[in-house]
């Protein structure tokens, strides 16, 4: 299948649906080591993004993702707003219409998104943040030689990265205030990122 306007639009709608479905789960995770708003933040932002896209359909993947980025930045707030905003902004900048679904271009765009989030948030892998799901997923894409397989590998890697945050002691974000007490809990942002790749595989792979 192709990475085109239709499939990317579908991906965004699936991700928005996932944020609605898992809103309470993300709230619960963020209540344990944060301030309990990650689920409502992501849900609010993605519903707004989908409405925006319905009101003003965008011509190509890049435009779709930039619209999502601007909507998240202006309606989410918190840490997730600027971070996911930056992610979609860079991803959209890196993606242009690839009917043939070029895995290399796709992986490069994701690398650019990862670098953007790291530059904004100054977090490294192992800090118990969304970076811990994002990094292995992007690496999986870079290792892949073909889009569908790459999308599925990325989804697996993101899920593993999400689970891997459980034992970690947080060094960035609110959870870091808990120091050792943050260990034993799964990071909410890594969890939302896991759904991002899960829905990507569903929408963009055959």
């Amino acid at each position: 299948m192709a990475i085109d306007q239709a499939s990317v639009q579908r991906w965004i709608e699936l991700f928005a649906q996932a944020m609605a479905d898992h809103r309470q789960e993300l709230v619960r995770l963020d209540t344990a080591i944060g301030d309990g708003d990650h689920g409502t933040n992501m849900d609010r932002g993605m519903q707004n993004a989908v409405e925006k896209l319905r009101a003003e359909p965008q011509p190509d993947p890049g435009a779709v993702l930039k619209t999502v980025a601007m909507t998240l930045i202006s309606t989410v707030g918190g840490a997730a707003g600027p971070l996911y905003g930056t992610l979609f902004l860079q991803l959209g900048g890196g993606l242009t219409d690839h009917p043939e679904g070029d895995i290399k271009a796709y992986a490069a765009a994701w690398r650019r998104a990862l670098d953007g989030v790291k530059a904004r948030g100054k977090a490294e892998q192992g800090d118990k943040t969304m970076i811990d799901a994002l990094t292995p997923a992007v690496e999986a894409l870079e290792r892949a030689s073909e889009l569908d397989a790459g999308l599925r590998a990325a989804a697996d890697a993101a899920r593993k990265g999400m689970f891997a945050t459980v034992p970690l002691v947080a060094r960035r974000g609110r959870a870091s205030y808990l120091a050792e007490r943050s260990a034993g809990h799964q990071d909410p942002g890594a969890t939302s990122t896991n759904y991002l790749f899960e829905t990507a595989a569903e929408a963009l792979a055959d």
Partner: protein
Amino acid sequence: MKKLINAPDQVVADALRGVQAAHGDRLRVSLAPYMVVRADAPTKGKVGLISGGGSGHEPLHGGYVGRGMLDAACPGEVFTSPTPDQMLAATKAVDGGAGVVHIVKNYTGDVLNFEMASELAQGEGIEVETVLTNDDVAVEDSLYTAGRRGVGVTVLVEKIAGAAAEGGRTLAEVTEVGRRVNAQGRSMGMALRPCITPASGEPSFELGEDEVEIGIGIHGEPGRFKERLGPASQIAERLLTPIIEDLPFVSGDRVLAFVNGMGGTPLLELYIAYAEVAKLAQEHGLKIERNLIGNYITSLEMQGCSITLLKLDDEMLQFWDAPVDTPALRWGA
């Protein structure tokens, strides 16, 4: 969850309607984006002062908008920092040509969003300086954390920097005094009972009937540790000792002592806590020259208190005493 609200997702908008209805004569309230602005803003030639943060900390920040304090405040959703476009709109609304100061509590979300806003504002040719507050000694300031949280000192920065701006100081001067207040102030808080956010409907942490949580922030985050509930004298000592050791405050220092309620604490208990703070301060040879006692930077209905000490100098004193006319802090006007 038992709250005096209409619906969890309408809390901020409904409260802003209340602010509009109550203070519409002196404040302009915007619902899109969320903003509370001095009715007479911008003041030509005056440095503009804005702050913002998640809701649930009332009267912070909207209650401090008015003459002698903030020119505008940007409330986010409950415990969620506001967005860059709110901050940009507020920055433009208060820019009198002398530049604008952003007072930002040190939380990743607040920092990142204000960062974006200040990039955007500067892109539009408005001079912006940022005063970051990070006074919470419960958090270690190290590479392994997001840095100390901005808590009680934020109220004092807004009052003192606000008076400096009202007094016609330059952008550099207002920024400098704001940063000095943060540098000379330290805080620590504790909870008897957690709070419940409208969205989650669940207590932000669990506490046994005989337990207190020491080192909490203002977002319902759990603290550094739990301990058995002791008398007010012990709790005051628990909070004050790390504050005094951290700066450190030394015998002879002139201080402002601020005993703050977390939202659900009766004034009766805050005065009991203040009596203990005054006693301990005296034992350390500190001279309390000013005090502030009440629910000023809160965490919804959380029960508990925080203590803030600020080491005063003559200029801070002068700005603290200067007239202020806001819904939540008012004197000399």
